[in-house]
């Protein structure tokens, strides 16, 4: 049980970097596919170190464990490199990683984390650049749908391998729309054929129409809409709507733009839609929302693509085959429809700078995110990994688990996918936004005030981190915003 270097950690870091650069010059391990290369790379590593078995330490949000451990066991059988993981709550990855950045203890070699924490963890010195290893192992990054891999880049370097293609998708109940009489009634009321909504207004109308409360108890039998409104989650849903309005979070001088007209309108719509959602939605995220939708209690849900796993699950779902997966809706801006999806979460395999076996950790990461293994993970019944490779689109296992329609729509949405605010201090920016959006949702403050408060908080954060630095980061991020308004 060796511990960190403490004050000597700088020396350690230097040593690791030196080791890293020599590794980069080493040869690409044999193998025709990325997973095969990962395995042979790992074997070579073990041989070079004279080890027969090795346990890597890993930090993992607990909801990922069951979906990942099976593949990890296979890798261990092949290479002798196993994983000793410890779980943390999904929103505590950042805190634990930060604490390790301070401690530099090497208590874990790698971890699964979201892209939001990437800039901070790079600046804090925890995330290790892996370009050298990516080159050496020939990771199959070329297959990744554009927009996803960018999440793992920061200031021109690669810091992780993307394992999860999160952006939002809208699922609605096909069977209800097609039920006899409903179409006519709907059309008579709103003037259009019910189906996938193109705009948020149309989604609102669908939600309003399909909210069914025949007894008038205030507890509908069917809720018209679902989206996340819980603390820590809800801001993403607003941000997507804001992007669809044509909004941008900052101008080129990092002045916040959220408090403008687009922001306020988006927030009002966001709040308005909430009335068709379950009462407790302010406390719900995936674990509550998925079963609720899969139980047939809601007409529509805007969420992560893995909703399909829950909704199409043969045993647990009451709505198998009854779902229609839609492109994210948009707004008509300047006479043209703008659809925007958002990278709602996303998960990345990171390697720690203080790892005892960074290379071994990398090989395992490459294995897990390779074409073949990622398809297995994405298709797995326990998985929360969402498709992010072009090859997933045609993989029969993925299609079986998620339906072809869903996978296609998902990757189409990716064409209009905008990033979250992935600059230094992202967690704090998001938290300020989240807090104020929720206060507005609760009716504590007006939409205008909520966004003004957000803007003020953001200014403060920017100033504290350093405006010039932030402008740089923001410029780099801006390039990741989509130019397309509607997917092909």
């Amino acid at each position: 049980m060796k511990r960190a270097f403490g004050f000597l950690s700088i020396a350690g870091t230097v040593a690791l970097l030196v080791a890293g650069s020599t590794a980069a010059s080493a040869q690409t391990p044999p193998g025709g596919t990325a997973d095969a290369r990962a395995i042979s790379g790992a074997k070579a590593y073990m041989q070079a170190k004279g080890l027969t078995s090795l346990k890597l330490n890993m930090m993992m949000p607990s909801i990922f464990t069951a979906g990942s451990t099976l593949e990890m066991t296979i890798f261990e059988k092949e290479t002798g490199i196993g994983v000793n993981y410890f779980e943390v709550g999904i929103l505590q990855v950042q805190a634990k990683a930060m604490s390790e950045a301070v401690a530099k203890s090497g208590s874990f070699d790698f971890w699964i984390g979201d892209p939001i924490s990437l800039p901070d963890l790079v600046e804090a010195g925890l995330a290790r650049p892996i370009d050298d290893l990516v080159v050496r192992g020939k990771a199959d990054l070329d297959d990744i749908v554009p927009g996803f891999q960018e999440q793992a880049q920061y200031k021109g370097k690669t810091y992780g391998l993307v394992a999860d293609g999160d952006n939002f998708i809208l699922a609605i109940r096909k069977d209800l729309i097609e039920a006899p009489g409903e179409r006519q009634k709907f059309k008579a009321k709103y003037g259009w054929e019910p189906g996938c909504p193109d705009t948020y207004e149309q989604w609102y109308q669908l939600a309003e129409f399909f909210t069914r409360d025949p007894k008038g108890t205030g507890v509908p039998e069917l809720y018209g809409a679902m989206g996340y409104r819980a603390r820590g989650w809800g801001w993403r849903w607003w941000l997507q709507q804001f992007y669809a309005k044509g909004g941008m979070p900052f101008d080129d001088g990092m002045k916040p733009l959220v408090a403008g007209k687009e922001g306020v309108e988006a927030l009002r719509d966001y709040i308005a839609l909430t009335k068709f959602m379950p009462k407790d939605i302010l406390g719900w995220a995936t674990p509550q929302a998925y079963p609720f939708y899969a139980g047939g209690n809601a007409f529509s849900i805007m969420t992560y693509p893995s909703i399909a796993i829950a909704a199409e699950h043969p045993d647990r779902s009451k709505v198998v085959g009854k779902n229609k997966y839609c492109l994210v809706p948009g707004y008509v801006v300047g006479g043209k429809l703008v659809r925007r999806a958002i990278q709602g979460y996303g998960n990345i395999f990171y390697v720690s700078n203080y790892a005892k076996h960074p290379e071994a950790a990398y090989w395992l990461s490459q294995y897990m995110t390779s074409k073949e293994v990622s398809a297995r993970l994405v298709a797995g019944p326990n998985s929360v990994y969402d498709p992010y490779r072009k090859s997933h689109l045609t993989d029969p296992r993925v299609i079986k688990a998620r339906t072809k329609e869903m996978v296609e729509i998902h990757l189409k949405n990716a064409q209009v996918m905008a990033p979250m605010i992935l600059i230094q201090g992202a967690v704090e920016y998001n938290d300020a936004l989240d807090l104020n959006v929720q206060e507005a949702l609760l009716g504590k403050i007006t939409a205008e005030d909520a966004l003004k408060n957000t803007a003020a908080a953001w200014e403060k954060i920017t100033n504290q981190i350093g405006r010039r630095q932030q402008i740089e980061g923001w410029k780099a991020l801006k390039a990741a915003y989509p130019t397309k308004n509607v997917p092909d």
Partner: protein
Amino acid sequence: MTGLRRWLERERVFRWLPFIPVQGLFALLLFPNFLLLVYLSLLSWRITRGTWWNAAFTGLDSFQRALEDERFLWALARTFGFAAAAVPLELLLGFGLALLCRRHFRGRRFYTTVFLLPMMIVPAVVGYDLSMLLIDQGPFNQLLSLLAGRAITVRWLSEYTPAQLAVIGADVWQWTALTFLIFTSGLAGLPEDPIRAARVMGASRWQIFWHVELPLLKPVIAIAVILRSMEALKIFDYPMLLTQAGPGNATETVAVYLWRVGWEFARVSDAAAMSLVLLVVVAMYSFVAIRVLRRERRRLAEEGVA
């Protein structure tokens, strides 16, 4: 061996021996920590900016930021608010229950056993146990509806005030057990004769309670107030588990906010400064509380043998 024993027997050695490890623990574990805290607070270091031992000295900047941070001040006020709501309730309930269970009667053992249970449950368990009970279509609302005779669908975890009540309720539910315990012990330990004397003099139950028992219990009440309020000011688990400090910032206690500033926002110096502000506020409170306790205890020593 005998030499060691003889050495141990010397009064000076014997009496100071336990102090060495204890003071050592404080001096080596807590004190450097405190110094480090002070040092960090005088920097403007964040985890994303170099290493702390290279960070520049910026004097009281962090303190200024802390005192200008409305969210921090609100969290502080909210925490005191929670304590101010929860602690008196716990004291009153605990005292009332202890009074009711004071004399022997059939079933007393059952009641006391039950009343002590909440204290023995891990607060994290209480947190999610309640999160299960308090969902809007959950058993708690059902129970309320049954009692009220009409449908009650309070969103305990997703509305502002109800969420605050839920956090306070969790604290009260769990820690009334401790106040009950303290007061039961206190009542059991009261001297019998002065109370009997008052009864013979014709004092009513209420008069005995007010003029005799309560003054005698004053030191016990003081320690109950101190123990409970200092724990209540640390509330962290319930909001973390019940509401994620939400909705909005309805249940963001100072502990939760400091956790966020330090570990999620990486602003360690700010967190350190806020910690020191918190420490000062708590210290002012404890100074007063401990003075009261000390006075009571000293008086006790003087009057103890009546």
